[in-house]
């Protein structure tokens, strides 16, 4: 009888026959032999991982459904930065549930990313319009981390030498707590103030205030901003995105930075995330804005084209001088919010805000009538004085509502998009009030008078047909995993299976407020408990924290844990962070955030950590060594054999090992950070554990720690247990809504399937290295000639021989239908390829054939002594318009440009733009669409 296919067979792209063929190509007999050859003996995992056996897709979904059903979906009016929202079905189906959007990578290759870049440009424009600021970035991780980023931006940009930062008492609790975590290692002094009775600010680099405070009251920010400006203090305003349709924009009122969450624009609460935080600044601060920024440039034929701009400020170039370790955005969620704004338009959003405010106002009048003290001004949130807050919360729950307990005698109710008359009547009964007639209760001087979102993008796609087609049109411009392999080294672009994705939009996961009572979140607790256990087993760590909502956040949390541990032992003087020169740029950037001094360790000619240099530096810094940050397998794509010795050297002086988990996909089931001897790691669930890249976020970067570091994992004001280290993210479990993806992956693969996946990923990388080695040198291999799960092609020689740059090769790959491998990292002028286990042999071969064909195109330049300037490579990629132009200016033919291999005649991805001019884009910074009024001439009188 034939075996039926399991999920493992669906996830791993290679059949048994294909694996046998590939092993033979490498001169090996079995997968076991491959693992034995590649993974050093002394760190081999000797036992089978103790994980539940694999379940089929159907059974795993059923098991997760039964866990999810332990969550209680209660109509929640808690607010505090999280609101129920009605995700338009057209956006849910065509974006959130569409692999064209969720499997795309960060748009570093702009020619194949014009769709999502346009979507992000819309998002940035929306933020600029609503906040009234000059420049907005493409989103940050959450409101609280955005606030912490704003604080450090103020410190860098302010002329003041002071270390004081004023914090209004009306911030959300989680925002305040994350700011505190961030301020501590940097030595900032936080001074709290009452937003309604601000002091005479003095001697500070900045201040932060919430426009509509945690109590619901609207703050008159204008005099406050003026007061700060007079003292040279920068002002950060956190704002509710919906309220900005009816409240005057902070930019108009003089704020220097404005930020908040776009969650309520169509992104479910999801127990706290992922959500896109918006972040916008004045023109003066634009070059110091953290995160990614989409700008408009032109392509080789003069068309408008989008690209990421000001990238040199990023951590991968500035390293320990980076201004932040942020290296991602929440692209998928930002795009949902941006599309939500396109779909509803300025008038739809304003109508929603007015309705929410009107409902709140009727409630407010009723409360006031009854004489219970409340906030006089409000947008959507009304605070109520009660004799017993617990009793009132319980009474509301009996009637089907979660409301917020502010303190023992105050509760608050936040109205949202889903609120209506019927609900209002129930609330009136709960509070025993008679509803008022409603009125505008915004302070007169703060009512919005400036226009917003007049651009075409926000005033066109209001019918579902138009919206559906717009989303399709944009998606068609991009190359994501739903079309081709994305062989990006260090990014692990593996399958994001449909059955892994399905649960995230179940109401039991989607419609849960992060501060809902624990007993309504039992399903989440169970799933998180499972995932913690499994990740601990996979990594051989003692504890896991799922709170960090990106890899870089994980690094930061891990380093905080290390410093917390040193401090607890009276060794706060340990401030030296050793980082190999091959490390990812976020490592030194994170170290700088925790107040550590980076000392660089060199690499030997094989790309391994230079042991002599390590020993010398460890000896030099002795007991001042805090930690060593390493990546394993190394960023050079090799299993270093001396890694345990490296760990021992650092441990010998009491230093800790931070093992960057970026390359965990080469370890699962074969070795582990715990076996290697590491103390703490972050794991990228968006790499190894199948959370999709979403076009540049969300990511999830949990940390695993050894026993002695467990007490120093991130805490949270919502946790009952206290940690000496505060929260690093707004929500206690970070991006909880997408954790079911990793849960499903592990549950369906089981211990053997996961190990198979690791071996298959290593096999595929070695197969590619073998096929391409005679065409391009493989830069680093181990002593036996093997690579790990990725390999670096050295393309520097063809620069010398033919004048062809790594950029030319990357752009030419687009004509073959591929996303380029990682370019110029970790070694300038090279390409790093990571195929993952999910690609079938046919796709691996198609990629190798493309690379070989490109090598032949390069050879043609070499042999004909031609110039790269008029080669088929230099003008790549080709648009339809380019190859059909009447006047063809090149020596090579149109056919050579368009169809270098025959298979392309049937399936050809056509980029919408030619090669994009980076210099033009960086010199002429345009990061949002100007309002319509700037396009139209003064109207002439009708004739």
């Amino acid at each position, binding site marked *: 009888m034939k075996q039926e296919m399991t999920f493992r067979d669906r996830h791993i792209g290679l059949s048994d026959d294909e694996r046998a063929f590939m092993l033979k190509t490498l001169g090996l007999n079995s997968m076991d032999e491959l693992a034995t050859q590649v993974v050093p003996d002394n760190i081999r995992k000797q036992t089978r991982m103790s994980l539940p056996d694999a379940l089929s897709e159907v059974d795993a979904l059923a098991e997760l459904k039964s866990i999810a059903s332990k969550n209680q979906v209660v109509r929640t009016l808690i607010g505090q930065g999280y609101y129920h929202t009605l995700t338009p079905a057209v956006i849910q189906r065509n974006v959130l549930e569409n692999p064209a959007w969720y499997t795309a990578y960060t748009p570093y290759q702009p020619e194949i990313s014009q769709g999502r870049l346009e979507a992000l440009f819309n998002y940035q424009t929306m933020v600029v319009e609503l906040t009234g600021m000059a420049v907005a970035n493409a989103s940050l991780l959450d409101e609280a981390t955005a606030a912490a980023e704003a604080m450090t931006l103020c410190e860098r940009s302010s002329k003041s030498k002071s270390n004081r930062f004023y914090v209004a008492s009306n911030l959300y609790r989680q925002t305040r707590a994350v700011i505190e975590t961030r301020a501590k290692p940097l030595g900032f002094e936080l001074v709290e103030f009452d937003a309604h009775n601000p002091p005479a600010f003095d001697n500070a680099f900045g201040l932060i205030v919430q426009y509509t405070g945690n109590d619901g009251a609207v703050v008159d920010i204008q005099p406050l901003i003026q007061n700060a400006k007079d003292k040279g203090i920068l002002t950060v305003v956190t704002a509710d995105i919906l309220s900005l349709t009816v409240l005057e924009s902070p930019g108009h009122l003089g704020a220097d930075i404005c930020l908040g969450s776009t969650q309520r624009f169509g992104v479910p609460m999801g127990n706290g995330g992922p959500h896109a935080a918006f972040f916008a600044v004045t023109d003066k601060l634009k070059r110091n804005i953290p995160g990614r920024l989409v700008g408009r440039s032109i392509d080789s034929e003069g068309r408008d084209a989008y690209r990421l701009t000001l990238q040199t400020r990023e951590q991968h170039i500035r390293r320990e001088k980076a201004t932040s370790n942020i290296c991602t955005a929440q692209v998928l969620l930002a795009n949902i919010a941006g599309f939500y704004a396109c779909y509803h338009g300025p008038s739809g959003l304003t109508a929603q805000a007015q309705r929410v405010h009107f409902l709140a106002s009727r409630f407010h009048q009723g409360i006031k009538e009854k004489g219970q003290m409340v906030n006089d001004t409000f947008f959507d949130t009304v605070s109520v004085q009660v004799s017993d807050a617990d009793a009132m919360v319980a009474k509301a729950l009996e009637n089907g509502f979660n409301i917020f307990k502010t303190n023992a005698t105050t509760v608050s109710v936040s109205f949202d998009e889903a609120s209506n008359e019927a609900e209002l009547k129930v609330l009136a009964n709960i509070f025993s009030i008679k509803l008022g007639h409603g009125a505008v209760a915004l302070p007169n001087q703060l009512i919005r008078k400036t226009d917003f979102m007049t651009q075409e993008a926000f005033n066109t796609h209001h019918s579902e047909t138009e919206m559906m087609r717009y989303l399709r049109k944009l998606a068609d411009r991009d190359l994501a995993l739903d079309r081709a392999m994305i062989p990006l080294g260090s990014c692990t672009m593996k399958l994001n299976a449909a059955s892994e994705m399905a649960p995230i939009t179940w109401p039991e996961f989607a419609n849960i407020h992060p501060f809902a009572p624990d007993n309504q979140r039992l399903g989440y607790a169970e799933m998180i408990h499972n995932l913690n256990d499994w990740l601990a087993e996979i990594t051989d760590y003692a504890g896991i924290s799922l709170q960090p909502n990106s890899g870089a956040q994980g690094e930061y949390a891990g380093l905080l844990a290390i410093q917390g541990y040193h401090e607890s032992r009276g060794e706060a003087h340990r401030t030296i962070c050793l980082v190999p020169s091959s490390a990812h740029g976020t490592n030194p950037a994170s170290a700088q955030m925790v107040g550590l001094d980076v000392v660089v360790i060199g690499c030997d000619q094989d790309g391994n950590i230079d042991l002599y240099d390590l020993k010398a530096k460890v000896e030099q810094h002795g007991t001042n060594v805090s930690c060593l940050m390493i990546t394993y397998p190394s960023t050079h794509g090799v299993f270093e054999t001396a890694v345990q010795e490296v760990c021992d050297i650092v441990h010998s002086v009491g230093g800790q090992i931070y093992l960057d988990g970026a390359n965990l996909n080469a370890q699962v089931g074969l070795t582990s950070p715990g076996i290697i001897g590491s103390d703490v790691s972050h794991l990228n669930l968006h790499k190894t554990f199948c959370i999709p890249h979403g076009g540049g976020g969300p990511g999830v970067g949990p940390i695993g720690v050894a026993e002695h570091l467990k007490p120093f994992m991130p805490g949270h004001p919502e946790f009952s247990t206290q940690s000496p280290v505060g929260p690093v993210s707004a929500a206690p479990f970070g991006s909880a809504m997408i954790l079911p993806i990793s849960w499903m992956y592990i549950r369906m693969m089981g211990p053997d399937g996961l190990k198979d996946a690791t071996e298959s990923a290593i096999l595929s990388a070695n197969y590619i290295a073998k096929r391409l080695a005679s065409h391009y040198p493989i830069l680093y291999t181990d002593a036996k000639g093997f690579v790990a799960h990725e390999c670096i092609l050295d393309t520097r020689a063809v620069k010398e021989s033919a004048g062809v740059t790594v950029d030319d090769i990357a752009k030419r790959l687009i004509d073959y239908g591929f996303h380029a491998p990682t370019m110029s990292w970790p070694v300038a002028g090279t390409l790093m390829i990571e195929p993952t286990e999910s690609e079938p042999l046919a796709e691996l071969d198609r990629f190798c054939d493309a690379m070989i064909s490109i090598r032949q195109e390069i050879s043609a330049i070499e042999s004909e002594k031609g110039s790269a300037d008029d080669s088929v490579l230099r003008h790549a990629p080709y648009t339809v318009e380019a190859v059909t132009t009447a006047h063809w200016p090149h020596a090579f033919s149109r056919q050579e440009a368009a169809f270098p291999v025959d298979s392309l005649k049937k399936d050809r991805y056509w980029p919408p733009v030619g090669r994009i001019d980076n210099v033009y884009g960086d*010199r002429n910074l345009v990061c949002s669409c100007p309002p319509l009024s700037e396009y139209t001439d003064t109207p002439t009188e009708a004739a």
Partner: protein
Amino acid sequence: MTVKYTREHEWIRIEGDMATVGITFYAQEQLGDVVFVELPEADTSADQGAEVAVVESVKAASDIYAPVTGTIIESNEELSDRPELVNEDPENDGWFFKMQLSDPSELDDLLDEADYQAFIQEEL
């Protein structure tokens, strides 16, 4: 008038106690197309080696250090609108800032042209 060089690839043209500072031809070549220059404000004092400016190209952002101790007198405002001047004419119109020297003896430690040329040959 003397011209001196630093190992950070800056040139310093000295006239009396005034120095004009920019980056060398070699430096701009290494950076590629310059897209932005952040300049110091006038009347600020700077110690030798302090970061006073930033030059950004498409592929790198680099700090510019004060080659000697002194006071910044003037910055080249032209660079805000035309950063490409750094590529086109790095050692004349592409100057960054002017300083008044406080300790001329610091100049003795800087490289002369021949030393600088030898230094970049080593780097290559």
